[in-house]
């Protein structure tokens, strides 16, 4: 079913934040940002800037420290002593961190004035290598905490020592590395913020994708109540987790709007976005050991994970545990030990970039499995099928208590292999032009609707648990059906799928259902976890919509039963009417029902007093309490699957990689809108291929970002994309209202498949091992010609 959103978007009539506030005198914010990755701010002099004609005012870190409280921290002591304000206070900790703000009549004037702000910096030593962050001589970013350690913990499930003792062989991998990149939505962040002096009310017109969370962080910092911060978003130009942690910038705007008593308009430009908004987490996997049987069965693994979250933990340290939703990936591994450490460095803060934390971990699991297979001389298909969770085991409880609701990985893999005609490619070792051919498989899970109780696994004091979303469905005064959502969609088609669900329940067509676009917290249908993120709309968002529509249907049925002198159980809703089943003449229109309740209710009996025809429902995902001490329990409600197969050709003399063939098979349970599902699969695959071959946030030793905009950061383009062959299977989830499983993040399957394909091709010519998630030509060339010491060894196990 084609999307409702499209009409306005195709005509250029979408309402993105920057499209608001037209035709009136504006005031525009420009931020002065630190050019240094680490520096003491000795003084800031805004006087020359403020004196420029057309400049309305300024803001500095000193004012911020006086007017706001630092954001609350989720970590344990001493790391929770980190003071995170919306602007640098006394010290700048990453290049691009805002240091001062200037507001002027035009954008260019604000920019010109920013050049007149005089900041005296004392550069400090910066650390941009997460592996150094805990060295005794490493510069400490947050003296209040006294350490660069953000969080550390150990996870231990099953009988790891026993499994290693029982293994036929043990494989050691020195280090695998998952690189820093992000989804870079085309629309950057921004806001138009107004403040009403009379009521202390802020109106924040922006493109934040997780308003519930923004409220929770901003209100205490601003020393105000949640309701005083009204979040309004309409159309959002892509999110992918990159529009979640910029509430820091929104706070700057709130302060300015209040200080200057003017609406302020802030736009982030591309370079600002790349330098100082959201990066995906960089993670190392070190001292990896895998206990294997000769037939390829993986009994256990242990490793040390090191995560670099940038200068401030803003969505962290939740990522230190979110990966545990997919501890064993698609596999039946029952014994795992992970020592997890998260550190801060003088780089941009990290946020929940598409695939958040599971992406990194799934890449590790898939790479590990692939390396094991290769070392044991096993076929990559055989080793996967040997270790996959089997369809007959679903729902499957993993080693740490997560429950994979449904899936058929072997069937999905078979279909994907067929789509690329695997056997034909296997028969060809090299292309006619001498390039090396490689085939790679990437099995991945897209876990959705997470249980926020997992926050307790990083800090037992945190009160969060479950996951929820709100929605309202009403019959308006003349019977129009209006839906409001708690989510803040950025292109996932929420208006369309919500309309479909409501139409089915109320017996109308989707065109009869008006879904209010965007999000407005004045509608009061938000809860703490409201937003569009983490592959969950099909479960939480649609669950809320379904619940609200069902409440409304029940009210309509009760009213119609009275009006038609029938039993509520006899009422059916169809064609815009409430009818007595089997007696179509006895019917009332939805329009009449609305009129009755709103304008002609006097004759209704007492028992119908509660009817409002304006129904709000909060969908709550059901989770059992977690066993925090064992880090055991269900962390996520649904698990979509994506199995990717990639065929590459590598130029052995230049290391250039071309994708010759590509297939994806996805399973997201019941597909509410198959076209939208396929679109998400395409998009997630593009992001993953882009990250695997083209996209990286790379810093120099001084902490300056070398890929600060699209001139340097090569986002994947039309000519880079292979033609995708996509098919779906449907294994409905037994746990969700519609049998649908959320999808959207995608699990990064392309990263796994491309790495595996490069490995396969490289293995024809050298013993190099792909140990990095990012493989530009030079790295591939080195794998072929100068791989260095092998980071992989098979050893005999040590008995207990």
């Amino acid at each position, binding site marked *: 079913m*084609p*999307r409702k*959103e*499209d*009409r306005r*978007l*195709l*005509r*250029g*009539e*979408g309402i*993105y934040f*920057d*499209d608001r506030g*037209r*035709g009136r005198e504006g005031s525009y914010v420009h931020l002065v940002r630190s050019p240094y990755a680490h520096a003491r701010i000795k003084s800031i002099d805004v006087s020359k800037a403020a004196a420029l004609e057309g400049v309305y005012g300024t803001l500095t870190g000193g004012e911020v420290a006086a007017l706001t409280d630092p954001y609350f921290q989720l970590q344990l002591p001493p790391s929770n002593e980190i003071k995170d304000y919306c602007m640098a206070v006394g010290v700048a900790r990453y290049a691009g961190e805002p240091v001062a703000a200037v507001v002027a009549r035009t*954008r*260019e004037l604000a920019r010109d004035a920013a050049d007149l702000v005089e900041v005296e910096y004392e550069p400090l030593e910066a650390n941009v290598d997460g592996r150094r962050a805990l060295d005794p001589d490493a510069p400490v970013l947050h003296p209040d905490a006294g350490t660069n350690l953000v969080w550390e913990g150990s996870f231990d499930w099953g009988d790891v020592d026993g499994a290693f003792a029982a293994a036929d062989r043990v494989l050691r991998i020195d280090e695998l590395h998952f690189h820093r990149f992000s*989804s*870079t*939505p*085309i*629309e*950057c962040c921004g806001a138009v913020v107004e403040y009403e002096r009379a009521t202390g009310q802020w109106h924040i017109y922006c493109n934040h994708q997780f308003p519930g969370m923004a409220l929770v962080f901003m209100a205490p910092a601003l020393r105000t109540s949640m309701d005083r911060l009204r979040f309004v978003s309409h*159309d*959002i*130009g*892509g*999110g*992918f987790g990159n529009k979640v942690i910029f509430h820091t910038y929104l706070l700057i705007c709130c302060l300015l709007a209040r200080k200057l008593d003017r609406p302020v308009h802030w*736009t982030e*430009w*591309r*370079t600002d976005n790349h330098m100082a908004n959201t990066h995906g987490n960089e993670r190392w996997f070190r001292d990896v050991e895998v206990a294997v049987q000769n037939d390829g069965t993986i009994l256990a693994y242990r490793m040390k994970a090191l995560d670099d979250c940038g200068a401030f933990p803003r969505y962290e340290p939740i990522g230190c545990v979110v990966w545990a939703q997919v501890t064993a990936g698609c596999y039946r591994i029952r014994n795992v030990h992970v020592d997890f450490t998260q550190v801060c460095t003088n780089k941009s803060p990290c946020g929940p970039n598409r695939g958040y934390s599971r992406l990194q971990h799934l890449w590790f699991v898939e790479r590990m499995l692939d390396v094991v297979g290769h070392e044991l001389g096993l076929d990559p298909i055989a080793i996967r099928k040997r270790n996959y969770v089997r369809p007959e085991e679903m729902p499957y409880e993993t080693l740490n208590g997560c429950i994979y609701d449904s899936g058929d990985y072997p069937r999905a893999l078979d279909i994907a292999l067929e789509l690329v005609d695997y056997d034909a490619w296997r028969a060809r070792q090299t292309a006619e032009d001498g390039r090396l051919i490689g085939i790679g498989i990437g099995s991945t899970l897209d876990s959705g609707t997470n249980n926020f109780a997992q926050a307790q696994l990083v800090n037992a004091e945190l009160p969060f648990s479950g996951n929820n979303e709100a929605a309202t469905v009403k019959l308006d005064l003349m019977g129009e059906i209006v839906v409001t959502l708690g989510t803040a969609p*950025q*292109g*996932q*088609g929420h208006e369309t799928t919500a309309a479909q669900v409501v139409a089915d329940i109320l017996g109308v067509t989707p065109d009869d259902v008006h879904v209010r676009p965007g999000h407005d917290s004045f509608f009061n249908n938000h809860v703490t976890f409201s937003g569009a993120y983490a592959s969950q709309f099909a479960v939480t968002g649609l669950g809320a919509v379904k619940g609200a529509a069902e409440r409304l249907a029940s009210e309509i049925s009760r009213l119609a039963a009275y009006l038609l002198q029938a039993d509520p159980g006899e009422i059916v809703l169809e064609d815009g009417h409430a009818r007595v089943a089997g007696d179509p003449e006895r019917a009332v229109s939805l329009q009449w029902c609305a009129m009755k309740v709103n304008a002609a209710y006097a004759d209704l009996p007492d028992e119908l007093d509660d009817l409002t025809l304006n129904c709000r429902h909060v969908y709550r995902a059901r989770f059992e309490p977690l066993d925090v001490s064992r880090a055991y329990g269900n962390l996520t409600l649904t698990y979509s699957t994506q199995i990717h197969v990639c065929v590459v050709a590598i130029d052995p003399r230049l290391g250039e990689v071309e994708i010759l063939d590509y297939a994806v098979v996805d399973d997201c349970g019941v597909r509410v809108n198959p*076209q*939208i599902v*396929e*679109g998400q*699969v*395409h*998009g*997630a*695959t*593009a*992001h993953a291929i882009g990250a695997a071959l083209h996209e990286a946030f790379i810093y120099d030793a001084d902490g300056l970002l070398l890929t600060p*905009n*699209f*001139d340097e950061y090569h*986002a994947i*383009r*039309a*000519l880079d*994309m292979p*033609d*995708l062959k996509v098919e779906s299977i449907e294994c409905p989830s037994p746990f969700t209202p519609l049998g649908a499983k959320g999808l959207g993040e995608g699990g990064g399957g392309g990263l796994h498949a491309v790495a595996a394909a490069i490995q396969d091709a490289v293995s024809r010519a050298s013993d190099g091992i792909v140990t990095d998630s990012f493989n530009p030509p030079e790295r591939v060339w080195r794998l072929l010609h100068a791989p260095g010491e092998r980071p992989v060894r098979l050893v005999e196990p040590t008995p207990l």
Partner: protein
Amino acid sequence: MAEAGRRVQVRVEVNGRPHEADVEARRLLVFLLRDDLGLTGTHIGCDTGSCGACTVILDGRAVKSCMLLAAQADGCSLRTVESLAAEDGSLSPLQQAFHDEHALQCGYCTPGMLMSATYLLERNASPTDDDIKHSVQGNICRCTGYQNIFRAIRSAAEGMDA
């Protein structure tokens, strides 16, 4: 404008209507369109002329409006995404194809994509797959993975042949 000045008079025809504006010499065309003329369908997505979200058709050529000064459009005729739909608001065949093929998700790159595709189809009624990919090489999309965009343009081209 043989004299150098910090302000310029710009006369430009946009979507068939004449406009006149007195702007700073430094004003970019995209800001003229969005801020001065209220045509917010043309979007800004980057700061290096890389993403193509700002694509318009100027004197018959697809160009990135963030890479032109408004002054450079003086005396020119230009079309933005707002010119594509019919007077009664109904979608053009190309827009309809984008809708039918689900070639947009967040919609932010879409105006630029539509203008690049329009430029292609006005010059080439039978584009090859390679022509289609080249036509939007200057437009970055982060949502769709491009697949459905190619399909939509192909569908629109085939509709033109019919």
